[in-house]
């Protein structure tokens, strides 16, 4: 990955010094060797601060939205970030010409806590960027691992077991909203949880408020989720959020399919928001 890192730095420096982009979004090095963080580089002389290795665990794309409007912005994009770019375009958050995608085929990242493949990478369906302006490194094979094992387990539970599973899960949630803030689908200017005057979301901390938050967020992102797994990775309390997201993708596939998840193209389809006037359902 050292070659890839060198090329990313060279390309970032070139794009910044030519003025083609106003910023490059990638990763920087933290205090410890296994800690990387989302870094926005704005000057060519800082391009050397960009790193790329197996510790780049964060899905950084959300930062794009904070910098569009300042000129074209470059994003170092693996499979997950590239799907997020498509997501943003389909959701009218940005236009294709506002972003320069430095695509990087992804070998999968390592979870510093366990030394094993990061969970979101172990479930990843698309390692090669689905959209890019240039590609750094060679395409990697797509193992397309089975990602529904946990969904199967929860589906097989009795009603009571499932209730207990979700009670335990949301009983841990501290409503920090890291999952929302990291998510490329959560782009509402004002999230329902902050609409205080309406008061959808109570401020108290308890399992009901947490479950309510989690369910509404799941439905708001359901047919758009790009299955990047960043919500689950970002969650400080270790909630298995992807159970819900994967379940929705599979349900959509069964009910409206074929469907493989969001962000594969920049125009949807987003099955739950797409309708046809000749739909066989009478109410349509």
């Amino acid at each position, binding site marked *: 990955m050292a070659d890839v890192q060198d090329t990313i730095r060279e390309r970032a420096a070139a794009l910044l010094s030519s003025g083609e982009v106003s910023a490059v979004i990638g990763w920087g090095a933290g*205090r410890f060797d296994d*800690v990387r963080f989302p870094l*926005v580089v704005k000057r060519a002389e800082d391009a050397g601060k960009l790193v790329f290795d197996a510790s780049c665990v*964060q899905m950084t794309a*959300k930062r794009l939205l904070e910098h569009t409007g300042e000129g074209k912005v470059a994003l170092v994009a693996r499979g997950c970030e590239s799907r997020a770019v498509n997501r943003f375009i389909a959701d009218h958050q940005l236009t294709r010409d506002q972003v320069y995608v430095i695509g990087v085929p992804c070998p999968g990242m390592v979870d510093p806590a366990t030394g094993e493949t990061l969970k979101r990478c172990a479930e990843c369906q698309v390692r090669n960027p689905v959209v890019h302006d240039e590609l750094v490194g060679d395409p990697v094979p797509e193992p397309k691992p089975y990602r529904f094992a946990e969904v199967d387990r929860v589906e097989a539970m009795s009603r009571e077991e499932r209730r207990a599973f979700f009670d335990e899960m949301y009983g841990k949630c*501290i409503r*920090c909203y*890291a999952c929302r803030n990291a998510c490329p689908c959560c782009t509402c200017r004002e999230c329902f949880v902050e609409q205080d005057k309406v008061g959808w979301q109570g401020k108290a901390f308890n399992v009901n408020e947490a479950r309510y938050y989690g369910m509404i967020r799941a439905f708001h992102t359901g047919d758009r989720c790009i299955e990047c797994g960043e919500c689950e990775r*970002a969650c400080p*309390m270790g909630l298995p959020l992807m159970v819900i997201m994967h379940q929705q993708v599979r349900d959509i596939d069964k009910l409206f399919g074929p469907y493989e998840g969001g962000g594969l193209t920049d125009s949807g389809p987003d099955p739950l928001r797409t309708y046809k006037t000749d739909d066989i359902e009478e109410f349509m």
Partner: protein
Amino acid sequence: MLLKKAKAGALLDAIAAKERLFVPADDRGTSRFVAYGAGVEPRFDLLNTKLPPKDLLFPATETLYRWSRDGADLAIDSAFAETDPFTVFGLRPCDMASVDRLDAVFLTKGYVDEFYQAKREAATFVVATCAHPGRACFCDSIAASPHEAPTADVLLEDAGEEWVVTPQTEKGASAVEAWKPYLEEGDAEPIKAACDLKVDMAAVPEKLKGMFDDPIWSDIGDQCLTCGTCTFVCPTCYCFNIDQDVREDEGKRFRCWDSCMFTDYTAMAGGHNPRASKESRVRQRFMHKLTYFNDRYDMNLCVGCGRCMRDCPAAVDISLIIDRIAASEPAQEKEAMAHA
């Protein structure tokens, strides 16, 4: 006096037979201070718990009063209640230092928060020193020490197989008196560990006063997601909101944790938000921790526990931020240079 670690269980049982007891323990894949009882396995080997002990004194949600209406009759009842004595056993020196900070906020400067005070007075804090500080621990260059906790009621100094038990307050002395059957006479050499990670705070609170418009805040803002993780896992963050739960003829007012990282935290009636940008919220967090609090209470609001950097989804590292502030040119000098 010594307490053999292998015999701690019997002592904990004895304490729990008398009053509520909280110990560090695993909790559904995370860790926090848990009420000791059947099935609770204390984890004295954990350094500091995932969630800090602050909720024992300052619950995440706490009802202040209730009201009800019956026709024209309105009843308002305070939810204040005295707290029965309880013991927190095995918190770390950084967490004890965080209690000092909460005390300053809730009990000094002319206002005593009775809800906090009731719990604080009921609490006995038993602090266990850290023989092996973690890589993110930097208490001893900012607020505390892995091997001391001057305000703890009882200090348990780690000596390997046992703790050296020293009462440090009256409350602690009577606690240790009651523990006698479980303690042993004798001496052991406490492990006096030091943190590897150090920060240089000396000039930071002053320097920050000239850094309101420094580019550091937009850099951190680019990195940060402005979620609430760091403030919720922080043992010293104490910001709260007061909200209500209103039903047809009854309701309650409660306070609950809030976070300066949230946009709605500073949203004002009429729609103005003085801290609408990420960088302004990020600046607030670090200014509060590293200079504003120092001005008011003469101590840092960060105790160096390392929780925020461990759990931040964007790997924002307060120790690196302190380094950068410490290395920055003071604003006046910068200005002088600009004019030179």
